[in-house]
């Protein structure tokens, strides 16, 4: 499967709807300190089912919804959609294109969708199991995490091999 696009709206500093299209090969993500690059990384983790608020640099769910700035009010909802080209059928979904969507409201829980169909967090996690994008994989390395990769205990490291197997 290939990554096709990422759409964010209301997630952290992405108060305006933003869509990124992805090509094969190497894409650089650049910009000044505090501009939102790591927030993009958090958004991708989040939509793939990340449950640890700490690894999203958030204290509670609300923290990932745009909190407003000096001119704009806070938003009530955050939504991130990640679209994959599934022509090779690597994702067990009967479709050549698979879109995963996650929404969070200030007052409530997260909602999950696969191709616009309401699902549970469990279904998202199962979908990506064994694809190399599940929890514990090192496909996504957050800022500052590179050092922690070596600090982990020997018994913690085995999860890399179990995910990989």
């Amino acid at each position: 499967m290939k990554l096709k696009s990422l759409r964010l709206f209301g997630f952290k500093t992405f108060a305006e709807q933003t869509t990124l299209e992805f090509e094969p090969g190497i894409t650089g993500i650049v910009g000044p300190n505090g501009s939102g690059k790591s927030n993009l990384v958090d958004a991708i983790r989040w939509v793939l089912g990340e449950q640890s608020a700490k690894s999203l640099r958030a204290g509670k769910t609300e923290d990932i919804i745009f909190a407003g700035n000096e001119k704009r009010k806070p938003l009530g909802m955050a939504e991130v959609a990640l679209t994959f080209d599934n022509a090779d059928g690597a994702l067990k979904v009967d479709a050549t294109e698979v879109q995963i969507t996650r929404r969070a409201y200030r007052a409530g829980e997260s909602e999950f969708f696969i191709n616009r169909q309401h699902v549970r967090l469990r279904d998202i996690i199962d979908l990506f199991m064994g694809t190399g994008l599940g929890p514990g994989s090192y496909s996504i390395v957050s800022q500052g995490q590179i050092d922690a990769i070596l600090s982990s205990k020997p018994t913690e490291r085995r999860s890399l091999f179990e995910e990989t197997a």
Partner: protein
Amino acid sequence: SQAAFNETFDAVRLAFEDVYSRLFPGGQAKMWQTDPTNLSETGIEISAQPPGKKMMPLATLSGGERAMTASALIFALVTVKPSPFYLLDEVDAAMDDANVERFSDMVREVASGAQLLLVTHNKKTMELAARMYGVTMAEPGISSVVAADLTPIREREPALA
């Protein structure tokens, strides 16, 4: 199953030791199971010997050496079990120019089939990219993203690249 775990472990170990000695020419690393008789409980140990030095505990390695050693582990996993994409956020922050060079060469080699997104402030790392997303805050507190396709410029005017 334990056979699959062992097979995966051996493949990753070989890839890790190979990539390490290419990121650290003249150096070598080792990876081993703390308890090969109990594969469902074993831990995975790593030690690294930068060129000319002795096998040292990982904690004593420098910031840049740790970033390169962790990169070797990631690249090893990449080659054994490809993931549809990789997203690395400032893994080059502690690397000096010579190490960023070796890291870049390894990225080019390993990324040839894969989709790789690299967040970076490093000008050398940026040279790897065929396209860039520039993230800025035209309005304070609000991210805006601009895409730039770099290949046409490089092919048309190599001198500018």
